């Protein structure tokens, strides 16, 4: 990782400012009903991903590329599949949890097609599902294990439940609301307002589009010199020196 040049942050857009056809598909702020009869507001702030190349290069966490959350087939609306593409900012939180899962399993975690972000126009978006918030993931394979049997699905479900209370895990089963060929995890209906965004704006298209560039949080990506950190913590608590880069 000898990257020293400054990366520009991802562009964040307010979906109310997007062109009408996109806005109609993303339906920012709209209330949608979930399977249990609860209503939720759809997300409003999205990362704009300019190209396929960018989607492939941008890593949300060390082991998850942005493109992995955008894998869809023709069930997704054609415009949503075309670049520039948009994904709710909460994707970052989902990726953080998937990275924890990857650490716990020690093996690559593979998201299914249509198993990451799904727009409200996606054919599988029949009711409010956290997939529409980019806070749900369908994992179909961990390492070399294809998750098709009760045993493997329930084993990993248990592992995830032990890992965190924040993730909901769908039980194994064939009916609606259960899963038998993947593991579904979600964080519920989380919308985030990125720190760069100001909320004192009307919900409607503005004469001047509002957007911001997310600042890169990690110093090395902002071009800060990367020097060894002072020893604040006792070395034993941290293990090896590489433990800094957690």
């Amino acid at each position, binding site marked *: 990782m000898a990257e020293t040049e400054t990366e520009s942050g991802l562009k964040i857009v307010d979906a109310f400012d997007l062109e009408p056809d996109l806005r109609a598909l993303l339906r920012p702020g709209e209330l949608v009903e979930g399977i249990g009869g609860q209503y939720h507001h759809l997300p409003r702030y999205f990362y704009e991903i300019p190209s396929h190349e960018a989607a492939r290069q941008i890593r949300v966490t060390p082991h998850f590329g942005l493109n992995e959350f955008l*894998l*869809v*087939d*023709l*069930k997704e609306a054609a415009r949503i599949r075309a670049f520039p593409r948009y994904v709710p900012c909460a994707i970052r939180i989902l990726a953080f949890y998937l990275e924890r899962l990857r650490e716990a399993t020690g093996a690559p975690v*593979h998201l*299914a*097609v*249509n198993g990451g972000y799904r727009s409200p126009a996606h054919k599988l978006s029949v009711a409010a599902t956290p997939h529409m918030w980019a806070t749900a993931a369908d994992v*179909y*394979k961990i390492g070399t294990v*294809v998750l098709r049997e009760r045993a493997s699905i329930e084993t990993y479900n248990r592992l995830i439940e032990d890992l965190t209370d924040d993730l909901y895990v769908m039980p194994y089963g*064939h009916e609606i609301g259960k899963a*038998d*060929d993947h593991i579904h995890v979600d964080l519920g209906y989380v919308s985030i307002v990125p720190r760069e965004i100001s909320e004192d704006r009307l919900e409607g298209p503005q004469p001047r589009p509002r957007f911001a560039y997310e600042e890169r949080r990690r110093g090395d990506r902002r071009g800060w010199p990367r020097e060894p950190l002072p020893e604040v913590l006792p070395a034993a608590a941290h293990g090896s020196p590489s433990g800094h880069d957690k």
Partner: protein
Amino acid sequence: MAKSPAQTPDAVDVRQSVAKAEQSLYASVLAIRGRHEIERLGIAFYDAETTLQWSYNADLAFHAASTMKLAVLLAVFRQYTRGELTLDEPVHVRNKFVSIYDRKPYMLDINRDTEGEIYDHLGRTMSVKQLAYYMITCSSNFATNLLVDVVGVPVIQTALDELKIDGIRVLRGVEDHGAFEAGLNNEVTANGLLKLLRLVAEGKAYGEEASAQMREILLDQRYKSGIPAGLPQAARVAHKTGNISTVHHDAGIVYLEGRKPYVLVILTQFSSETGRTTAVADVSRDIYECLAGMNGG
């Protein structure tokens, strides 16, 4: 569609030879039927070169087996021509389907041997065009169900209705046991399949471009024990077979050097399960020989 030749001596000759051909065909088909102990037999045939049209029980309905995949192919190209689908669009290769009868999910009984390349794509995507190719050339049930999902059963029926193809009824995908037990089955008649393939042969199935693409896929058919087995090596056949337990079908467009193609549909049903049978190939051979005889060859 029948040609009405003028009353020249030539035309009289042609009519006499047609009548003779029809009689001899009828006799040999009856012989084949008896020899193979075929319970039900349906044949429809149209030759673009001589305009000879001939049929036997052509409106008798059979279990469609895999010949229903022709209707799925037609529906795919309908959506393509209408701009509702592009052929390179990705489709998630996932073995999970919903019964049209009770909306219950079901899976296909598949493995690498039966599905080959598609099985290797499980969890990933394949394009509409690739799936159409495997649905026809390898008779992939998996590809078929994925495409039935993409276009939807109602669109398949709409395509058949639009092109005035009677005699093909598609109600469900493959291995939908819930629907099967409820008596919802796909059916075909020889005339229905003949009509469909004639449109494809003549460039009238959603235009010449779509028809040409369908013919190209059909020409790559890998199962050749039906119609092609009764023909000379040089013949090229754009066709689709249908085989399960007691039925053995084949429906195709036959291209022979130096003449216009002919379209032939042979549907057979046996009283008990039969493995290999040469019945379809035998009918195919008789028809070829009959035509060859008419051409003075």
